[in-house]
């Protein structure tokens, strides 16, 4: 828990997030490399942060989304007038509320209420609210957040995505061993820029410097007895890639935004289905077989 200030600017994927509070704000270690001291431009997102969670922070009109698995409820989203209310649960003590947050209809202004830390400070971006803030930031911009790893050879950035256990981290290790840089091996933001698509890392639970690389290809990966790849196009490419995008699909406009983004992305960047043997042979196999696919 390094950085402690009442006002903090973060630049993540080129977006400016400005946090401010009457209390001292603490950040998890992974956010520290993304802190910038001076940033004159208007923030893409502001976060007004408060210490303590009032008993009635917002009046919920309707429960619209729950992120949960069989064991745990991670967070709930309520519609409240034209805004959204978030209840974030403690990831270790499941029945305790960790933060309550409000997001306005433009996805630009958050109010975050957090319980005090042992030092009587606040950690408004404590997981999972940090990634949630990033996700809603991508919804107001031409960007998406994905569960994926990304390797960069100095010219081309390749994204590898798939189900949990498909080999995203393994793929990163193979490309790293072959002398390539790794943007991240778990969570990425893709943005459409003037000259194509760029891939960015995001703050993780560990410290890593902000990175960006030009996206050249997307791979849907799975383990296989032998290396094999097939180029995907059209609707198949879009659905396969979009399935691994981080999404809260309770609003029609969210889905339309994602479909539009991935339709353009998959028309511009080649998408491959890749079955691979988890050893160094896959790097050579990809380099030999994607030729002509990379634009």
């Amino acid at each position: 828990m390094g950085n402690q200030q009442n006002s903090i600017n973060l630049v993540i994927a080129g977006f400016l997030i400005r946090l401010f509070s009457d209390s001292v704000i603490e950040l998890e270690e992974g956010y520290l490399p993304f802190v910038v001291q001076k940033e004159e431009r208007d923030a893409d997102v502001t976060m007004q942060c408060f210490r303590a969670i009032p008993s009635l922070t917002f009046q919920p009109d309707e429960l619209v989304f729950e992120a949960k698995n069989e064991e745990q409820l991670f967070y709930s989203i309520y519609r409240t007038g034209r805004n959204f209310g978030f209840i974030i649960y403690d990831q270790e003590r499941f029945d305790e509320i960790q933060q309550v947050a409000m997001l306005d209809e433009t996805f630009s202004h958050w109010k975050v209420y957090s319980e005090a830390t042992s030092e009587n400070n606040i950690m408004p971006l404590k997981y999972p609210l940090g990634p949630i803030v990033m996700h809603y930031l991508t919804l107001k911009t031409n960007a998406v957040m994905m569960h994926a790893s990304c390797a960069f050879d100095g010219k081309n950035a390749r994204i590898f995505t798939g189900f949990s256990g498909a080999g995203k981290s393994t793929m990163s290790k193979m490309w790293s061993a072959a002398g390539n840089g790794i943007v991240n091996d778990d969570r990425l933001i893709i943005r459409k820029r003037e000259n194509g698509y760029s891939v960015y890392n995001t703050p993780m639970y560990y410290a890593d410097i902000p990175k960006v690389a030009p996206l050249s290809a997307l791979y849907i990966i799975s383990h296989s007895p032998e290396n094999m790849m097939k180029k995907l196009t059209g609707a198949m490419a879009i659905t396969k890639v979009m399935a691994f995008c981080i999404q809260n699909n309770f609003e029609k406009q969210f889905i339309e935004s994602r479909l539009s983004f991935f339709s353009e992305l998959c028309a511009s960047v080649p998408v491959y289905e890749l079955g691979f043997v988890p050893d160094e042979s896959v790097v050579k196999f990809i380099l030999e077989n994607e030729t002509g696919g990379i634009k």
Partner: protein
Amino acid sequence: MEIQTLYQLKSKFVAREVGNELILVPLTGNVAQMSELFTLNETAKFIWENSTEKTTVEDMENALTETFAIDRETARKDIENFLRQMEIMFIKKG
């Protein structure tokens, strides 16, 4: 699944046309269903798009035979197969 059920399902999905195919994404309040996206081929897309509250299987057979130049038996099999797939994907998973 009855063909009229398709019409009722439409409001629960967002559709996007890509070439001759149609992508369906479910509106959902559950994170577990977010990776369930569906791709419909040209015939399935036609059935989905032309299903109304009052459409009967016979109506759809007629529409398919006229549009795709196929015989009635093929049209009926296409409809039955599509409805069966929809039932597996949307009803049993839901």
